[in-house]
């Protein structure tokens, strides 16, 4: 009795091409992690001298004096956070407005061109923003905006005797000018991400609101925004992350004064601008260089944290 020859089912075989492919994917993934961790490690090791010298007090030290070799990071950290948050306050409402306009009320024909125009705004090199800010925006601020702000908001009481809000000599450059430039730079990110979030809202949900007799505004504020609240915050945090690390445009317009700001319009410095300005003169092995690397480490950690929050929020609440 003979049985027909059938291929045996059983022993696991090695598929060389498949294995190679799989391993190369692992390698590609590993590269990202290795690069990220080694940057973090090298920044930390390079900046270790600064942390050893000043301890954790480096983070809240307010004095920055290269002559006496006393360095504190707080002025740069303050400048970074204040400009980034101010930029966010300016860009957020405008970005949301643009996104709502594009998704809800914009005529069909204008939608694509406007969308492209906003994405082009993101493609302008930051050095161009910097030059525009220095030569156009700063004089304008100095001539019109700052005097007006000063005279209008003179009534706001200062914080202690060191922070006067909008009372400052109108010199054009400063935190407010930097924040305006940053706002223009992060606007396309906020607008584009918000638009994508709104477009991803299920039509069924909007239809549900319309079918209940809701107007466009009621559907948007009552149903759509609550549904995607987390993602909308994610869009904002993405913008914040970019504003924190932006360097070139800020160097032009912030005034580069490493001291605690005494008003929102005072010349100041951000971590990135301090590093960019002082790096060429920092000799290897000196405290000067270690301080800059330590600053870089701090910025890295802050930006990483903000981005992590953004990812988390963007992933949350995505409707099925």
């Amino acid at each position, binding site marked *: 009795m003979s049985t027909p020859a059938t291929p045996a089912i059983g022993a696991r075989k090695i598929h060389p091409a498949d294995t190679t492919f799989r391993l190369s994917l692992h390698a590609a993934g590993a590269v990202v992690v290795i690069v990220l961790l080694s940057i973090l490690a090298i920044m930390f090791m390079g900046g270790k001298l600064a942390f050893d010298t000043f301890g954790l007090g480096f983070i809240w030290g307010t004095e920055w004096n290269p002559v006496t070799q006393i360095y504190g990071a707080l002025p740069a950290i303050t400048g970074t956070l204040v400009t980034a948050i101010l930029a966010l306050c300016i860009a957020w409402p405008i970005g949301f407005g643009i996104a709502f306009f594009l998704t809800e009320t914009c005529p069909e024909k204008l939608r694509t061109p406007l969308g492209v125009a906003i994405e082009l705004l993101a493609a302008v090199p930051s050095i161009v923003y910097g030059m525009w800010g220095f030569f156009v925006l700063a004089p304008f601020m100095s001539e019109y905006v700052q005097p007006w702000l000063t005279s209008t908001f003179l009534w706001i009481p200062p914080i202690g005797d060191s922070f006067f809000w909008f009372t400052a000599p109108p010199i054009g450059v400063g935190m407010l000018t930097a924040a305006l430039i940053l706002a223009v730079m992060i606007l396309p990110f906020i607008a584009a991400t918000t638009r994508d979030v709104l477009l991803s809202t299920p039509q069924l949900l909007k239809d549900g609101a*319309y079918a209940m007799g809701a107007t466009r505004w009621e559907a948007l504020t009552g149903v759509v925004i609550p549904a995607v609240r987390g993602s909308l915050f994610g869009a904002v945090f993405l913008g914040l992350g970019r504003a924190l690390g932006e360097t070139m445009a800020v160097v032009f317009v912030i005034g580069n004064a490493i001291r605690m700001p005494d008003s929102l319009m005072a010349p100041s410095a951000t971590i990135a601008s301090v590093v960019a300005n002082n790096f060429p003169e920092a000799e290897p092995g000196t405290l000067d260089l270690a301080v800059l690397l330590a600053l870089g480490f701090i910025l890295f950690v802050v930006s990483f944290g903000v981005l992590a929050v953004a990812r988390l929020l963007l992933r949350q609440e995505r409707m099925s």
Partner: protein
Amino acid sequence: MVAGMTIDTQQPAARTPRTTPMAAPTVTATSAAAAPTLIRLEHINAFYGQKQALFDVNLDIPDNTVTAFIGASGCGKSTLLRCLNRMNDTIPSARVEGAIRMDGTDINSPAIDPVQVRTRIGMVFQKPNPFPMSIYDNIAYGPRTHKLHGSKADLDELVEKSLRRAALWDEVKDRLNKSGLGLSGGQQQRLVIARTLAVSPAVILMDEPCSALDPIATAHIEALIDQLREHTCIVIVTHSMAQAARVSQRTAFFHMGKLIESGPTDQIFTMPKLDQTQDYITGRFG
């Protein structure tokens, strides 16, 4: 004119009698009651861009009756349903011609506010779409949006009444503040129906309300539909012939954007006047 007696066919009844009786699905719904006409559709033509989706539809929809729209996918039945509460207004390329008369008003007129039309004519969709908020807030959405309620106690009462009418109260009364998204599919669909009921609509449109539900949830919804017709007019689009036979008293059959035949459900399912209707109902469509 008595709606139950009307022969609403587009084409003359030119059908030759069959020699052998066709097996008809079991019909449990009673004959159409002689309810007065609530909505009268006159010469409805609907377009999406250049494409015409409905061709000269004339139909009377009686009150306190479940009217089923049946027909193959793309036959225009959902389009017609969305004409009734002006949902097509939310689609920029859509255009609807003709008159939809309700209480003597042409609600399809550009002068009529679609938002007000939709508060009188509620809609339930293919998939349950509770809003991402608590069960209570879902029901309270309509009354709050249209400021229909007085005090908080009024609103509480309205929420309870709506949930009771949708046969959901007993299942959710202990978790009114939990998210509506946490309910099962069938409960979500009843929640959506309750949300619609909270604004006391005269008409409820249902666009395949059971297509995403299992048979038990479907049975719940169908029982509910039968109860609701006491107080409202219901128009249901369905792909399930059996469902149309079970829940509706009137049936309208559509094909390629045209209303082919309409009449009392038991007549449509047992003695359709046209071969085309007969073929569709017995599954020999195509």
